[in-house]
Structure formats: C-alpha cells, structure tokens
C-alpha cells in the first residue's frame, strides 16, 4: 500500500491541486425565529500528505465543517470537491466510494465500539476475505502495525479491556484498512491523557510521512496543532479568521481572536504561579 499511496500522492501535482476542498461552504441551522449560521462562507484546501489543523473554541463551527466534508450533513450552499470532482451531491455507490476514501476518527473512542464484539470481529466485519494478494488477517496485522499495536495485543480483546489510547489507535487502524486518502480526526485526542495523546499524535505524523496521508485535525488545543500540523486555520463563530503555515499563525498571529486564544493557553514554564514564599 505504501507504494501505491505514494504514487497517488505523486499523481497530484504540487500545491495547486488539493485532494479535498471546500469552496464557499455555508451551513445554516433553523432555530426558533430565524436561523444561525454555523459555518459562514468557508473555503479550505487540503493538500496531499499534509496535516491541516482547524483550531477554535467550542461552537466555532469546526465540527460542522468536518461533518459536511464527510458528507454526513448536507451543505446549505457551497461546493465540496474531492480530487477535482464535485462531490457535494453524489449519492449511492459514488457516495460509498467517497466514504471509503475519506475516513474519520471521532472524539470518544468508547462510543464508536460495539461492546459485544472483540476488536478482531469488529475489524473483520463487512470486509472481503481477500484483497489482491493480501488476506484479511494480513491486512489487519499491517494496519495495526501502523498504529504501533501487535495483533496479539488487540484482536482477541473486547473494547473495555483496552486503554483509551489503545482504543483510539484501533479506531485509526480501522480507518486505515479502507486505504483512505484523507483521514479526518475530530478532537480525536482530546479525551486522552497527555502521554497517550503524544503517542496518538505521533501515529498521525508517522502516517503522513510514511503513507502520504492527508490529515484534517480538528482541535481546540493550539499546543497539539503546534506539535503536529503543517498548516493551521483558526475559526471563530463560523468564520475563518486566520490561516497559514503553522509557524506564522502560532508565532506571529495577526488576528485579535488568535492572539487572545494564544494568550489564554497555559504554558508550562511561562505561566508558573507567582509565589510569595
């Protein structure tokens, strides 16, 4: 898979042709006495083999944007393009093919598991026994190895026997089995402890470097975006207020909101409590 994905990544010429893009996307929700605009005329491009982080407070529209990109929610207006093709209104087999290529990992790894299945049973479900030369067991083993798990560690276990970090890594492995081009991680590491969080982020970094995977990383934690992302966009109230490469956005923010967000982040050494003893 490494070779084919690398070819796919190479087939996309440079920065100009994004893998996935949202063009003037708007989402409005009806509420009593009018509507609220959750995502307001947002255009974003996702380039092959890059990690793009979407940062913003609760309610800034990050997850709504993700749901529309995943085609889990209809857009109010605007276009979503995948490999140059308009996928905003595709249906049926085309949509299922799109869902294979664009995979997602969500915040709560516990909610995405069926408690009664072992991990192996869950990974095997609805999968053909053989894909090309590779048997299903080999595929499972390979995908688990990408996320740093051994099949013996996970396959015969039930979800409750795994730690939060392991569960989240199994979810990433499950997404990888579909050989996706884009992986969308919506607050995928927010529920994990700091030390587990770092290993999950390392997995994503590694997938980008080894498989050329495009990652859309949604978070409210600028620190994580700083560790992982190549590019950052900052959202506030449905609007993109700042975008650019990570170093520019985080170390030289132009927008007032970005500056405030950065000022509020506790910094381990910088914000040590002033003491009087």
């Amino acid at each position, binding site marked *: 898979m490494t070779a084919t994905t690398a070819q796919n990544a190479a087939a996309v010429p440079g920065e100009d042709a994004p893998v996935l893009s949202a063009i003037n996307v708007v989402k409005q929700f009806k509420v009593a006495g009018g509507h609220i605009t959750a995502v307001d005329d947002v255009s974003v491009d996702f380039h092959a083999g890059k990690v793009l982080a979407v940062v913003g*407070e*609760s309610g800034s529209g990050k997850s709504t944007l993700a749901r529309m990109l995943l085609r889990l929610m209809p857009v109010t207006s605007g276009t979503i393009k995948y490999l140059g093709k308009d996928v905003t209104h595709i249906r049926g087999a085309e949509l299922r093919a799109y869902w294979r290529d664009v995979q997602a990992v969500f915040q709560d790894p516990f909610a995405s598991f069926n408690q009664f299945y072992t991990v192996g049973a869950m990974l095997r479900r609805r999968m053909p026994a053989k894909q090309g030369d590779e048997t299903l067991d080999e595929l499972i083993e390979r995908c688990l190895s990408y996320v740093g798990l051994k099949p013996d560690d996970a396959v015969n276990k039930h979800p409750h026997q795994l*730690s*939060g*970090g*392991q569960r989240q890594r199994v979810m990433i492995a499950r997404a990888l089995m579909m050989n996706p081009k884009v992986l969308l991680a919506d607050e995928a590491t927010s529920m994990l*402890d*700091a*030390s*587990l*969080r*770092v*290993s999950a*982020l*390392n997995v994503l970094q590694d997938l980008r470097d080894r498989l050329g995977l495009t990652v859309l990383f949604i978070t*409210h*934690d*600028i*620190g*994580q*975006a*700083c*560790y992982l992302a190549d590019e950052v966009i900052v959202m506030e109230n449905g609007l993109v207020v700042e975008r650019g490469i*990570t*170093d520019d956005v*985080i*170390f030289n923010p132009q927008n007032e909101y970005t500056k*405030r*967000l*950065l000022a*509020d*982040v*506790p*910094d*381990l*050494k*910088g*914000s*040590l*409590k002033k*003491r009087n*003893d």
Partner: protein
Amino acid sequence: MRASNITAVYAADSGQDVPAVDNVTLEVPEGQILGLAGESGCGKTTLGNAVAMIATPPLYVVTGSMQIDDQTIDLATLAKDSNNIHRPYRGATVSLLPQGAMNAISPTLRIRDLVHDVMAAHDKGVTKAEAMDRATDRLKMLSMPSRVLDSYAHQLSGGMKQRMVTVISTLLDPKLLIADEPTSALDVSSQKELIEMLLQMIEMKIMRGVIFITHDLPVLSMVTDRLAIMYAGKIVENGRTEDLVHSARHPYTSALLAAVLDPTKETRTKHVLGIPGSPPNLGNPPSGCRFHPRCAFAMPECSTKEPPFLLEGNHQVACWWAEKNPGVTVPMEVSVV
C-alpha cells in the same frame, strides 16, 4: 491540613481487593494549592473521594487519618458511623467538587434554589432570603454578576456553570476544597477565568487550602504552589511546583513533562516518544518500583526492591535512580527533529 497513610481499596468480584490508593500521605499548608497529577486510573480521584469522606462500597478506606487544625479524624472507621458525622464534615470542613460537577445543576431549578438547598442541608433553619444574601455577597466579592442566581442551567455557558458550582461548593467556607478535574471540560478561555477565580478565593481566605486534581500539567503550573505526582496508587514525587517543573527528579514526572504540548517554538521541533506500555493492573502491581517496566532509567534493583522515599529539602521523591544521582534533573526523553 494533613492526610496521612491513606490506603483505599476497591473490593472486586473475584474477592481480591484492588488497592487504588496505597499508603499515601498528603499535606496542604495553610493558604496553598496542592496539585495532584497523574495518568487516568492512577488513583487521583479515589484519593480525593477518600479525603472527602464519600467512599462508598465497593470503595473502602482501610487505613488513614485526616488532621485539620487540632482535629484528627480517622477515615477508616468513619464509613461505619451514621450520616450525622458526615454532614457537618462535608461541605463545611472539606468540600468536594467532583468531576463534571457542572452537570449536577438541575435543569428545572434556578441557581438560587440550588444555593438554598445546599445551605439548608447544613442549617435547617436558613431562609431563602438569608441564603440569597450570602450568595449575592459572595458573587460580589468575586466580581461576578448576581443575576446568575435567577438563571436556569441552560442559560449559562459551560464556564459560568463551572464557576457557579465552585462558588456554591465553597459557600460554607470549607477549610479544604478538593477540586477534581474542574477545568477539563472547559475551553482555554473559560479555564483561565476559573483559575483566576480560584486564586482570588484563596487570596480572600474563603477556603484555607485546595487540592486540585487534574492530568493537565500546564494548568497545574498556573494554579498550584506544590505538586504531587501519582503513579499506580502511590505518590512518586512531591515538591514545589517550580522545582518539579524545572528539575524533575523522578523519571515519570519527567516523562509527563515531556508530553506537555504548549504552543512554543520548542514544541514545533521536538519529537516526544511518550511513555511506552500502559499503566499496571493495580490488582497485581509490578514488584519493586511500580514504574520500572516503563522506565528508561530502570536498574536491576528497581524490579526487586521498593524505592526509598528520599527527602531533599522541600522535595520528596521515591526512586532508585534519584538516590544514585543526587541533585541531578532527570533528562527528558525527547528528540529534536
């Protein structure tokens, strides 16, 4: 305030007791905030519950006592006593702000009704007006709007709800407040507001000590005076926050610090390896030092003998490596890319 030798076990179905907190001693000096940090499942919350005296089966406190001023309370025998002993203790002496406390506000009651309920639970004669007066005064002191008292839970933001439950849980001026993950569900801006309010409250001497439980080290560095790091039911390191952050003496503390991702230039270029393996099963903890299977500095004696609790001035650490290397900061397991 001092909680000594606390051991708390969960009685498992298999008949084997799982010691989630193993012989832990904590001290909160007057007017200070103590941070308690560690991974999920290391026993932080269990320790908080034991000290707040809300241990209910299957959790049992086996040994341990609590000393506040001249009063000593035996935590192990308390569970057998009637509720009458617990009531004045809870809320007035020690107040617990449990995880997700902001979701405890009833959606059908106004905040002021909750205020009255809390006050009436300790003093049956208190009238609604008296309770309101007290709450209004307290909110004024903390420069928060008193209109909040007339609101329902759904009218408040997450940050405001969390600040309100904090205010309500300290209405009776508890000597000690135990705050369990109070900031974890909040975004950074609300986190900062809550922390500033807590600092203000301790300044005003509303409570005389706080135990702040979270796994978020940057938040702890902002709010605490001292830090205790917990691993697998034991305290592995304990000292002034500044000393711990700048010169960690236990490899576990160092690994936790390395995993902190704050938006600095350093984070941009570092590659953190994380802690290999997963936390041990507390029903059958590793021999010797409980951290040794995951420790990069493990030595032969680590797996056989329990490390001594070294006292280095104001700083305590339980580690063989630290004993062999006095005064040396544990190097961080970080590579630069």
